[in-house]
């Protein structure tokens, strides 16, 4: 292995009091593909964002090619040779390949832009990668895989020696992945160091030289890939036990309330079948992009379904819009609270009232303010939403309290099925427990509860039954009391055989 090109030591970073990184280190060599692994929220992205100058670190040292850098900015990181290939590609879709590659550093002739020179150079780097793209093509017309190649070509054109790839294969087909790996190997031979972030563990054997594992913002271990097995990797990634943080109530299992049959909606919701019973909480586990959010959205009528049947209390129902779902008694507390959950310009009271206006007003549509206040007071009290006044804008609340509003607005009405999508994302432990108590309360009241979560301990601790999804399909159904994180991870990485030769995740016995 070549020389050390990146050394990060004792890196710490906190966001509004939450320690995202705590004394983390990382070492990258010339010609090495290093897989940076960890659960969602382990701090991988924060770490690479510090290396690429997006975030400034609170403490620690960064050396690139032996040179120590103080506060990196995106520009100084680029000059040092660091390039990041983003998960969501950052390109102007309406501009050409060449225009994108030279955006912000266009080559000028005497008067106008020197397009010929730029195209020639763009062609040179595209040829170097061996990809068949013309510099004159409009980026938006190219498939995602090709756009990724352009990002890589752009990185080469600015002489990047350290490439960070964040989930590069999540949107690619098997053929495209092979193509990407071919290019990664070529970059490696030319002496680049690559930090490769991926949830798809089965890919690693095709490209990874070394592994660095993080958990809860801490460095856990590092070493050559061949010294690890899939099981030891997963153990390092999830290895913790915190059952006590998850209050569970035991209820008698009741009758079937809700059933989804052969639901299909787009690429990420394929042939979904499951049922919910009274007195239980069902957790949906899986990696990001496994189709869990999409499943809840399809059920709730946000996204169109292509086929499938939904039964509530044994009777088939039609849901074409959220309004249909709410009327039937099915509600969803969505994942992205800023985008889908909260009207930040409205007051807390107005937010809580919004989905309940049908009960607050009579047929006339005139709102009963006393009833609204009462409802709102109840929600604030039950959820202990901390605010000086419900007349404040929802935007003024802290993240945890905002989340409580998003969740709480659904709980003051009588529903039969409640779906939560990542109900505890980005909130502190105390607020999390309050939300768990709420879910338990619903469970005790005979309401069918399902929740999507990417935090395995939470799924194991709160759910009674766990449904695991991978790539738009349900790959497993497990009893939360009997299963382990490792087992869930195995199902969650059970991708369809895109690569011909698969990793250790093929042998699976059906627990359903």
């Amino acid at each position, binding site marked *: 292995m070549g020389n050390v090109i990146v050394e990060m030591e004792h890196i710490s970073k906190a966001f*509004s009091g939450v320690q995202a990184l705590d004394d983390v280190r990382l070492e990258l060599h010339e010609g090495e593909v290093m897989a940076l692994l960890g659960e969602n929220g382990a701090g991988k992205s924060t770490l690479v964002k510090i290396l690429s100058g997006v975030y400034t670190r609170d403490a620690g040292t960064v050396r690139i090619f032996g040179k120590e850098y103080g506060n990196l900015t995106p520009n100084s990181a680029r000059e040092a040779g660091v390039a990041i290939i983003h998960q969501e590609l950052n390109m102007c879709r309406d501009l050409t390949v060449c225009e994108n590659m030279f955006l912000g550093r266009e080559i000028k002739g005497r008067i106008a832009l020197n397009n010929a020179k730029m195209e020639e150079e763009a062609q040179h780097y595209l040829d170097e990668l061996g990809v068949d793209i013309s510099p004159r093509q409009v980026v938006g017309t190219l498939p995602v895989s090709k756009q990724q190649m352009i990002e890589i070509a752009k990185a080469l054109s600015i002489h990047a020696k350290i490439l960070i790839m964040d989930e590069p294969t999540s949107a690619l087909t098997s053929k495209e992945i092979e193509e990407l790996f071919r290019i990664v190997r070529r970059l490696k031979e030319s002496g680049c160091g690559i930090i490769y972030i991926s949830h798809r563990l089965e890919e690693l054997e095709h490209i990874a030289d070394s592994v660095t594992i993080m958990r809860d913002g801490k460095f856990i271990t590092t070493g050559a890939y061949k010294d690890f097995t899939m099981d030891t990797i997963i153990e390092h990634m999830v290895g913790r036990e915190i059952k006590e943080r998850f209050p569970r109530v035991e209820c008698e299992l009741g009758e079937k309330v809700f059933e989804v049959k052969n639901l299909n909606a787009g690429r990420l919701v394929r042939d979904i079948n499951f049922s919910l019973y009274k007195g239980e909480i069902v957790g949906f586990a899986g990696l990001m992009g496994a189709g869990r959010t999409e499943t809840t959205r399809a059920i*709730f009528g*946000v996204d169109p379904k292509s086929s499938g049947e939904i039964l509530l209390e044994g009777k088939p129902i039609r849901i074409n*819009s*959220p*309004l249909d*779902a*709410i*009327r039937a008694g099915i509600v*969803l507390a*969505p994942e992205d609270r800023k*985008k*889908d*959950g*909260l*009207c*930040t*310009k*409205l*007051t807390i009271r*107005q937010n809580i*009232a*919004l*989905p309940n*206006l*049908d009960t*607050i*007003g009579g047929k*006339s*549509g*005139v*709102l009963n*303010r006393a009833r609204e206040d009462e409802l709102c007071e109840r929600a604030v009290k039950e959820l202990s939403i*901390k*605010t*000086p*006044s419900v*007349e404040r*804008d929802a935007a*003024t609340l802290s993240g945890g309290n905002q989340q409580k509003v998003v969740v709480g*607005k659904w709980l003051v009405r009588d529903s039969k099925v409640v779906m939560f999508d990542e109900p505890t994302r980005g909130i502190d432990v105390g607020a999390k427990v309050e939300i768990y108590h709420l879910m338990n309360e619903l469970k005790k009241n005979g309401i069918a509860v399902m929740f999507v979560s990417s935090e395995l301990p939470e799924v194991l601790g709160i759910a009674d039954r766990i449904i695991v999804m991978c790539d738009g399909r349900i790959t497993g159904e497990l009893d939360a009391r009997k299963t382990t994180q490792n087992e869930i991870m195995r199902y969650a990485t059970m991708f369809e055989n895109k690569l011909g030769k698969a990793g250790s995740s093929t042998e699976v016995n059906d627990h359903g």
Partner: protein
Amino acid sequence: MDKKKKTGIGKLLEIKGMGSSLTAFAGLIVIYFVFGMIDHKVFSAQNNLNLLRSMSKYLLIGIGQSYVMITGNIDLSIGSVVGMGTMISATLMSHGVPTLPAILVTAVAAVVVGILNGFLVGKFKLPPFIATLGTMFVTRGIAFIVNGNRNTDNVASGIGKEAADRFQKFFYYGKTFGVYNTFWIALITFIIFFFILSKTRSGRHIYAIGSNVDAARLSGVDVVKTTIKAYVVSAICSTIVGLILAAQAGMGNMDAGNMYEMYGVAAGVIGGVSPLGGAGLLLGTFGGAGVWQVLENGLNMIGAQIGLQRIVIGVIVVMAVLLDVVIRNGSRTSGLGKKAG
């Protein structure tokens, strides 16, 4: 979280958007007295009556545009719908159609335009600027065509002197309790739409889609229906103004209502209605229309040129929004500062 005993004013100020509404009214009073000091004729009874009457048009337009702005959209067709209303009603009356049916036909035409606007924006997701630009041209075209590309004759020539008199008095020249009817019409319209916006489900939905359309949809709000409602309100208000203009002139003018959509934006914005949606009170729009009218009236009284009037109004509109932006940015940076610290 100390529970302070709130006095009447404190309670009032707790209502969101009340601050900027009251600021608009304060501005209105200040401007009124400043001009009054310069020229005492401003305080005269007749001038006050005129003020209330001419303000009414801006108030009505402002109500419509505010509804649409609170949903996060804009209605550029307002001025043309005013013109269309004037022309359809005056054409019908000057051809002998009695007043009431003429008004009804006009109202139906306006509601159709409102529904169309709402559909284009809410259902087909056209940018509201483009959708209503289209209907703006179309409705102005209709205003031209209904009477064969010329202004109408006097309405009295069709429905007779007596009926024409009644029509003109009802909408413009008559007084009730010593104040011009135009003001009462605007006030009643204001009260109705104020009530709908602040006290009913539809009103709440209008705020919700303007604040976050995705969250509103996921909360069960019918976005298309709500968008249509806002545009229909806008069209109805425009039509009332169209009728007022027809009554004022006693005939239909093809160019009536030109630029009124922008006056509506100005009235709303001065009163604190957010052009980005989700925030603002109709009370503010009332204040905004007042500020505008008092300014125009005062500048007229002291003999300022029309050009100067435009400049002053332009500056006031920008200042009002600038103030809003500065205040909001101020609170945002302090919020971030808290997080970082």
